[in-house]
């Protein structure tokens, strides 16, 4: 593992209020890393500190080996940022926004044309090149921001709630770009999201709550550790099924139309039921989701689709 982002004992306080409380984590180069958490968990504070906008209170934060407090300009050169709120220059056209960005990041003049064409192609907005930003829809603006965040070829792209407030189709598109970039250009993606299904795509998920990281692992591991698979069994012979389940010490809940059984391993359940196949009429197994993980760890539902 080659960490591109290293955070050690990072704390951020506003007066007496502690927004982020002594967190440490690493992000592997070329991976997609997601911050999950309810509003006010400290996600945006962390992302803003990594982007050199906020000053840390304590701790060390490094991106590509450079310190975000003492080597601000070095860090700024190697990151791209897509903020929650639009930061596009609405008075200008899409192309002019991209050109201005190239000036800010000193992209060599002979490469500017090529790069503009490339990023616009990527987010499928080539035809909108000469349109004023104010004339674009919300989803298009977000795509322009992503294009702009990439045009200087950053090592890490920060995305703060990149899909919030967008329709499902646009959300899916944005995820296509993100995954494509990670795969093809090996750009590390650091994002925050409210959407659990989106977090499933990521390589690594850190769950934040009350300024602390309460879990940090691959989605698969998180689910394995914090959730149980749930089996829904329908039967015509309830007494026999109940007897069978009790015999194997499996806890169950009886519902009007089915039995619900929480199991540690699906093969184990299959073995139990295998002996008496004719007892059951139907079996459905649902895997635990990140939402269950979140619920299990924090004791609360994550609010979907809101602003943080």
């Amino acid at each position, binding site marked *: 593992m080659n960490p591109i982002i290293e955070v050690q004992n990072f704390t951020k306080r*506003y007066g007496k*209020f502690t*927004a982020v409380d002594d967190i440490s984590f690493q992000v592997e180069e070329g991976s997609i890393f997601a911050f999950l958490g309810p*509003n*006010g*968990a*400290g*996600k*945006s*504070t962390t992302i*803003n500190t990594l*982007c*050199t*906008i*906020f000053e840390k209170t304590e701790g060390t934060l490094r991106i590509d080996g450079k310190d975000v407090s003492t080597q601000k*300009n070095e860090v*700024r*050169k190697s*990151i791209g*940022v897509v*903020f929650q*709120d*639009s*930061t*596009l*220059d*609405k*008075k*200008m056209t899409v192309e*002019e926004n991209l*050109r*201005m*960005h190239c*000036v*800010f*990041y*000193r992209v060599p003049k002979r490469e500017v044309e090529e790069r503009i064409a490339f990023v616009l192609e990527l987010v499928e907005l080539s035809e909108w090149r000469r349109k004023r930003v104010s004339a674009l829809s919300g989803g298009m603006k977000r795509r322009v921001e992503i294009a*702009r965040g990439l045009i200087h070829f950053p090592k890490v792209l920060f995305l703060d709630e990149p899909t919030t407030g967008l329709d499902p189709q646009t959300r899916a598109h944005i995820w296509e770009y993100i995954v494509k970039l990670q795969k093809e250009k090996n750009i590390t993606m650091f994002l925050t999201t409210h959407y659990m299904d989106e977090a499933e795509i990521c390589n690594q998920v850190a769950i934040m709550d009350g300024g602390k990281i309460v879990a940090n692992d691959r989605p698969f591991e998180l689910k394995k550790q914090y959730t149980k698979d749930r089996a829904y069994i329908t039967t015509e012979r309830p007494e026999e099924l109940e007897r069978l389940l009790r015999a194997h010490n499996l806890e169950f809940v009886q519902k009007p139309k089915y039995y619900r059984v929480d199991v540690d391993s699906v093969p184990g359940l299959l073995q139990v039921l295998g002996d008496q196949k004719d007892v059951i009429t139907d079996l459905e197994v649902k895997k635990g989701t990140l939402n269950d993980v979140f619920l299990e760890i924090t004791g609360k539902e994550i609010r979907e689709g809101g602003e*943080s």
Partner: protein
Amino acid sequence: MKTVFALCQRNLKDFVRNKPRLILSIIFPFFFIYVFSSIFQNEYIENPISLMLAGIAIATVFDVTLRISSSTIDDMSSGFMKEVLVSPVSRLSIAGGQFLSGAVIGTMNGMIILLGGVLLGFRVTSPLTVLYIIAAMVFVGFVFAGFGLFMATTTKSTQTFQVVSMAITMPMTFLSGAYIPVGDLPNVLQIITRFNPLTYAVAMFRSVSLEWGGLPLEQQIHLGVSIEIGNFVVTPMISALILLGFGALFLLLSTLAFMRTDFSKMSRSAGDAVDWG
């Protein structure tokens, strides 16, 4: 330096694209010339139109420069400033870009007024005067660009800025001698004009553009291009020095203020100014 020019180019584009604003900023001065020109007729002045034109042209430079250099406040509230802040661009070049934009666009607007003035009988005898006029406009532009950015960085919110800007620029414009001769004002207001930097800009610019630099001091005082304060006479040259001091002070103050401002605490509205997230 590239950033400075790129920002200037951007502001220039925006200025030209906003057609209603562009047309208004050209029509308004001529409207004022029409309304106020009768006031300027007195025994010493042969051509009140030229006097008006010079005054209004420089007042336009003042107005436009201030508006452009303070447009930073729009960029802050629209979020664009955040994009700038996470980029490796120095804040100094952002401030520089705003100053240059203000001076360049202000001068362009002022020149348009004078060119229109040619139709109304404005004349210069020497081609050199044209160069002096442009130089004087650029100078006045930079002087007030600092002032504009200073107002923008210290007020921080769009709504407050509009009120503050009106409260400062309106009296400055009308108590400068550009629209109404200083001598026609009540005594108290006459005293206030002496503290108004725009008064000196108007006096200096009239002396340059109307080619009155060589006139006897007595006559300069009557024409209002030299200003008496007690026993001391502020000649156009001294006016230029006063402006230089004022301009340098505000360019410095605004640059410092701009570099120190914590933009992370600024947002669309005061309500979500602090983001705990």
